[in-house]
């Protein structure tokens, strides 16, 4: 009798082992609103497909480190990764190629950064969050002082002076802490004045238009709160929310807070528009979040199935309702979403014209170096020309050391 029971137990055990293995995915997401939507989508997909989902939620800086380590060592720790588009050139060599090209409903600027080489190569990711910088300004004050919507940076300067003097608030607020903060606020000015950071393998950030753009930035700085050379996004947004500043460059993530009575003293008073131009049309920085499958993933087929599903229109609409700016034109143009998110037309226009950061694997190091000298100029420690010469010198060294730059 005991032998029969043992045989039955063994048979049941072997049967359970030989059954269909359970599907499973490990997903690395950013700890923030962008990651929250993907996390929710992953849980939903897991339930529908009887798959075990493990979500690894990490803060921005740690996410890059962990993903980079996993990709280069091909450990297969993650099946799906969420990545900021400037990381893409560095990670591209270790990402799996998409089995089919994405459809044309995606905004083209978002699709272009998913290809390696930029614009022309194979698709290695799908765009999930359509972030592009916007220009935030106090519509009520512009109307009060009979100022038209700012179309050029000269308009911005005139308005900053007029509103600043008339209202006893700061006409403009920007962030100039070293690194990403100051570079992100400088790039739209640099592009509008006709400058650039690099051309091929040559640093051009000390060209005459670049010097002019930095001088203009310092001029705007006169209407910014003292200490802006140490500001990050939270200080800039605090000034807008408290009604102590009239204009700034900002990211879509802050739009909801502007109209939230619990956080804002300027509900309904902030207007969102495309970036002002100057000599060239205004463009903002692109900051799209992408989803991709690492080459070392052990569940690549399921991972691809999930990322295609998560970026379908129906799922992207769900993500949009959770607060993510979409990457599909049809979602931006959906009437019910426009009724809910008044900034969608401006966001779509800005996303369609946005420019990515130079497509080089060394962007993090270049941005750090560039940011140091821009911050020094804004703090008054260096003359604009000297700061940009030093930045160009430093960037040139990085480029020569790595020799892997390509230009968008």
């Amino acid at each position: 009798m005991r032998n029969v029971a043992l045989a039955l137990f063994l048979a049941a055990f072997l049967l359970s082992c030989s059954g269909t293995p359970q599907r499973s995915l490990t997903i690395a997401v950013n700890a923030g609103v962008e990651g929250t939507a993907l996390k929710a989508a992953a849980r939903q997909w897991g339930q529908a497909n009887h798959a075990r989902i493990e979500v690894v939620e990490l803060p921005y800086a740690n996410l890059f480190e962990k993903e980079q380590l996993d990709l280069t060592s091909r450990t297969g720790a993650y099946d799906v990764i969420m990545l900021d588009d400037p990381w893409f050139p560095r990670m591209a060599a270790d990402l799996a190629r998409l089995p089919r090209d994405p459809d044309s409903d995606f905004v083209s600027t978002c699709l272009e950064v998913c290809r390696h080489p930029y614009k022309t190569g194979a698709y290695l990711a799908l765009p999930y969050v359509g972030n592009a910088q916007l220009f935030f300004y106090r519509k009520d004050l512009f109307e009060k002082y009979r100022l038209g919507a700012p179309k050029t940076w000269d308009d911005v300067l005139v308005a900053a002076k007029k509103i600043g003097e008339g209202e006893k608030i700061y006409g403009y607020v920007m962030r100039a802490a070293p690194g990403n903060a100051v570079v992100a606020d400088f790039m739209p000015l640099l592009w509008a004045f006709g400058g650039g950071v690099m051309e091929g393998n040559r640093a051009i950030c000390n060209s005459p238009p670049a010097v002019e753009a930095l001088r203009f930035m310092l001029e705007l700085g006169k209407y910014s709160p003292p200490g802006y050379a140490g500001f990050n996004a939270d200080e800039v947004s605090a000034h807008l929310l408290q009604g102590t500043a009239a204009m700034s460059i900002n990211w879509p993530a802050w739009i909801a807070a502007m109209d939230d009575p619990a956080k804002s003293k300027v509900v309904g008073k902030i207007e969102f528009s495309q970036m002002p131009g100057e000599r060239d049309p205004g463009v903002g920085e692109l900051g799209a979040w992408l989803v991709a499958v690492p080459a070392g993933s052990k569940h690549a087929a399921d991972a691809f199935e999930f990322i295609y599903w998560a970026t379908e229109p129906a799922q992207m609409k769900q993500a949009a309702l959770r607060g993510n700016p979409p990457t599909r034109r049809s979602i931006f143009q959906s009437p019910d979403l426009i009724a809910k998110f008044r900034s969608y037309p401006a966001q779509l226009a800005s996303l369609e014209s946005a420019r990515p950061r130079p497509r080089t694997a060394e962007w993090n190091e270049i941005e750090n170096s560039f940011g140091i000298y821009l911050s020094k100029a804004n703090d008054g420690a260096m003359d604009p020309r000297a700061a940009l010469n030093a930045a160009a010198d430093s960037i040139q060294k990085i480029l020569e050391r790595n020799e892997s730059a390509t230009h968008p």
Partner: protein
Amino acid sequence: MNRRRIPEGFPWVLPSLLVLLALSIYPLIYSVKLAAADRGNFTRLFTDRLFLTASIQTIVLTIAALAIEFFLGLALALLVDSLARGRMFFRTALLIPMLLPPVVAAVAWRLIYNPQFGVLNGTLRWLGFHTAHLTWTSGESSALASVILVDVWEWTPFLFLLLSAGLQAIPPEPLEAARVDGAGAWRIFRDVTLPLLKPTIVLALLLRAMDLVRIFDQIFILTQGGPGTATETVSLYIYRTAFRFSNFGYAAAMSFVLLAATMLFSRGLLRAMRAR
């Protein structure tokens, strides 16, 4: 045949030894391999202006913060030790800043230092001071001092705690003998208390100095090394090089230089204290 015997306790310490090898020795050897893979990693150190700036600032920050924290810690320890009542209360109250996680303390100070909305400038304005140009962590000239102030606020209690314990451990007899011989308070402090406290002082300074050389979290949150490079330190630069620029070899080379400098500094401090 004369076979060497394995020590009796060896199998019992083997698991710990393996863990130590895996977690400490192997990473150390691996990082040596990383740094040495490209000889350029070490030669670049001599031409890298950012590394030089970060090194100078780390030294300035370490010396300034260590000096202030030591003198404040010693003064507080002597003061609390001389109290007839309330010693426990002051000891507990003074330890509060040290009990906060450095990240929490840095976030709190970042809010305190905000030039427009911060409580520091707000209080100064309320007292009638003109604060328009007091930008604290945002100013090239004031940023490093602001970071040092946060460190002093948070870590003076550590020195206070160690020195206070050292004072408690001094036997009362030498002090009483000195008093009987007619020595004044200053003479007793200089000739009796201080020499007997020396081992504790050395330990306290060493521990704190090693921690200061590695300072990272407060600066990362308060200034991220800025404005410009005003508060850039070696550990911050190593972190960026390794995890933001993915240049692990160069980061490892810098780490070894930092390790060597810390060892030299510690040895120098020990020698200087022994010589006196």
